[in-house]
């Protein structure tokens, strides 16, 4: 999809290998499984739970220049929506090539309507979005 996806937990790489081999849901997994046993990287992103020694469910999108563009953190008991992650990634890609545009909430994929913020649009976002 044009991005390097790295999953990260505080498990060792050996546990991740075991999990990958054991869990049928992971049979098609191709992304790198990162190991952060000391929680160093999780701490850096503010998702390390000191009392549990575990990483919260945090998702971060970083552009090729190393700039953080999105951050989402869920508590342990809520899963993430991969469609929303893909939407955010595609929007980032689009915006990196069209720097004067903005992707509104309903933007889903390439070809969908974007906005071009300008003084004219102030108070007229609805009209701009609906093309009226």
């Amino acid at each position, binding site marked *: 999809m044009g991005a390097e996806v790295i999953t990260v937990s505080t498990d060792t790489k050996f546990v991740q290998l075991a999990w990958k081999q054991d869990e049928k849901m992971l049979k098609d*997994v191709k992304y790198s499984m990162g*190991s952060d046993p000391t929680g160093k990287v999780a*701490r*850096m992103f503010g998702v390390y739970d000191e009392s549990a020694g575990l990483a919260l469910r*945090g998702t971060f999108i970083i552009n*090729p220049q*190393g700039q*953080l563009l999105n951050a989402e953190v869920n508590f342990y008991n809520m899963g993430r929506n991969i469609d929303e992650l893909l939407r955010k990634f595609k929007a980032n890609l689009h915006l990196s090539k069209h720097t004067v545009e903005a992707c509104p909430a309903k933007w889903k994929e390439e070809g969908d309507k974007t906005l071009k913020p300008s003084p004219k649009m102030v108070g007229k976002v609805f009209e701009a979005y609906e093309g009226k």
Partner: protein
Amino acid sequence: MIETCCCGIQVGQPVPDFKLETFEPTKGDFGEISLEALKKNKKWTILFFYPAAFTFV
């Protein structure tokens, strides 16, 4: 670098370099990944933290 940064990075800010040991399912082997190398290869990076192996996403 990482040691001085403990509490999260604000969206829009540069991410300090980090390194992770990895398991690479495509090679069936261990590896290493760093933000520096990803930047050098002009890659977008998605970091996906989860509490522990053997749990859901």
